[in-house]
């Protein structure tokens, strides 16, 4: 499914935009700058991962302290929900690889590729 590289009007290859390129910060909504300004910061992904991993560890520890009562006895194992949540999520996501190869067809497979409804706004340009 690789797209052929784009060419400009004189036939030369155009460099595709890289995911690592500096974020494009033109025309950003002022509220976005206040609320989500931190999203584009280069250290954000690692900090978030650290935060979530710490929270996860904290939840495992909390489970040692809390005496849980479950209707189903196996759910009382320490961190049962945590393991099951991690495993279920990973299984769902990883199954996307084989399922994609198995089930994905061309967009126009049924001859109904154009699904843009008429009540969307026409772009200004």
């Amino acid at each position: 499914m690789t797209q052929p590289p784009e060419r400009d009007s004189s036939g030369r290859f155009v460099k595709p935009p890289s995911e690592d390129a500096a974020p494009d910060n033109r025309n950003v909504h002022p509220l976005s700058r206040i609320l989500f300004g931190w999203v584009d910061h280069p250290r954000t992904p690692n900090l978030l991962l650290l935060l979530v991993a710490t929270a996860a560890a904290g939840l495992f520890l909390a489970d040692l302290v809390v005496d849980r009562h479950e209707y189903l006895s196996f759910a009382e194992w320490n961190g049962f929900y945590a393991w099951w949540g991690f495993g279920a999520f990973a299984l769902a996501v990883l199954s996307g690889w084989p399922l994609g190869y198995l089930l994905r067809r061309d967009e126009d497979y049924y001859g109904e590729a154009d699904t843009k409804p008429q009540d969307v706004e026409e772009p200004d340009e």
Partner: protein
Amino acid sequence: MISLLTQINPGLLLVLIGIVGSLMPVRRVRQGLMIATPVLGLVLLAAAPREVDLSVTSALGLELVLYRVDSLSFIFALAFLIASFLNAIYALHSDDQLQDGMALTYAGAAVAATLAGDLMTLFIFWEITAVSSVFLILRAGTKAAYNAAMRYLGIQILSGVLLLDGLAYVYKSTGELSLTAFTSFNDPGALFIFLAFAIKAAFPFLHNWLQDAYPKATVIGAVVLSAFTTKLAVYAFARMFPGFEILIWIGAVMTVFPVFFAVVENDLRKVLSYSLNNQLGFMICAIGIGTPLALNGAAGHAFAHIIYKGLLFMSMGAVLYRVGTTKASELGGLYKSMPWTTIFCIIGAMSISAFPLFSGFVAKSMTMSAVGQGGYAVVWMMLLFASAGVLEHSGIKIPYFTFFGHDSGRRVKEAPFNMLLAMGLASFICIAIGLPMIGGFGYGWLYGLLPCTAAAAADVCMLSGEEIKAYQPYTLDHVLTQMQLLILALLAFMVLKKYGFYPPERPGTILDTDWLYRRPGYGFFVWSGRVWDKLGPAMTTLAGRLASAAFNRLEAAFSPRGTLARGALTTSMAVWSVVLLGIVMAVTLIL
């Protein structure tokens, strides 16, 4: 005066005003009607006395109960009316006479079907939901939408026909059409009605109409569609099939399989449609359990779900309206231009993922507890898997790939104010009914609406003398285990994304079981059409030849110039007369 008002069925009111609205060319008047009517409906519903036949008529020798409110129908009708009000606000920026009117009629039909007191009335409004909702798909104006709308209509009408068939059987065997719950499938009517409900509730293998039609509807249409049809079916199951064990397993399967389709699907409105299916599974499963706690779980979940699923469809509608697509592969970075929509979408996503403090948590906890209480370990594990799956496709995939992720470079305007207002109100409800009880404000409002309370509706909830204990969603156990599930699933997402194991979003059509009727099934009909085109004339020619040959033979024998007319009659005629007389005499002698 008050007694007269309580006889007006709010659903019927919405249906009629909707029809008036579709003929009303003045935009502001029409939109005023679209907003005011659901509010009036809410007032009428609140004023109506419970468990009384409020409006009765008779037709075709049947007594029809048009309007009857009890604790189960109340919560569903309330949710439908609130959704209809929010949808009217969401649609204010558009000027589409037919769509506005039909959206209200559709909502009204769902309300009226919920408030119906007998099967025939239910059937009538069941069909009106099908016929009025199809316009919300057709108005998209594309060939894809037209084809999907025709498939949708065919399947919805099939559901209606099955319901009619079932109620005829029920009438024959019991002599009445009341909405009493079935206890077994012994009556064939029960089976037909079950199938009719199953189609509208999008059971596995009967689900494709939903994922086919909803993503092809208009921006507003998809929001409206997401609220009514399927939840009407959930209500119908809760009313007529509570405690049927088969529903537990069907529900569990329904929660699990859409997770896998949602992972690979690129169109985010279609992802939401699969997610809708997964959420219905929780409700169907709870209805199968059938205990008061489980039925409360199903009804509470339906209420919360109507609001947060509407909210998610609204946010994707806003993106579609501004950007022109909801394909994940073409979106990303929209938080830079649509911050309000981003916030509302995240609130919807956290509600559906059942984070504590949001409506999904207080609703889904009841179902999970009821399944655990019933001892269904495998089903419970399936539902837990599906809960992590919801976080994957609705909690993370929808907001992440639309508003964050790889910046698509698209800079658009924020959604129109009316859309933001509708999303804001829906977000408010999601949080308000999810909070712990502080100063009389919080989840208690939702729990106060649940059908099975100690005081209400023994016939709805099959209470066997036992009191219902007040359910506590905010225990340390619940919060801790739910956070473990969600945070570790979130950690899985971050790890898989960081190390490149997360499958990239790619454009394409994902095959589902509707392939069977859209490809081989359709192909078979095309092929048989071609065969008939050839075979038909050939058969006509053959029949013509045979007929003319037979005619020629007969003519050769009997016509004035034929064999029998030739020569004298005497010899052969005399012989034959003697023979015939002989036979007649022989027969009379023997007898």
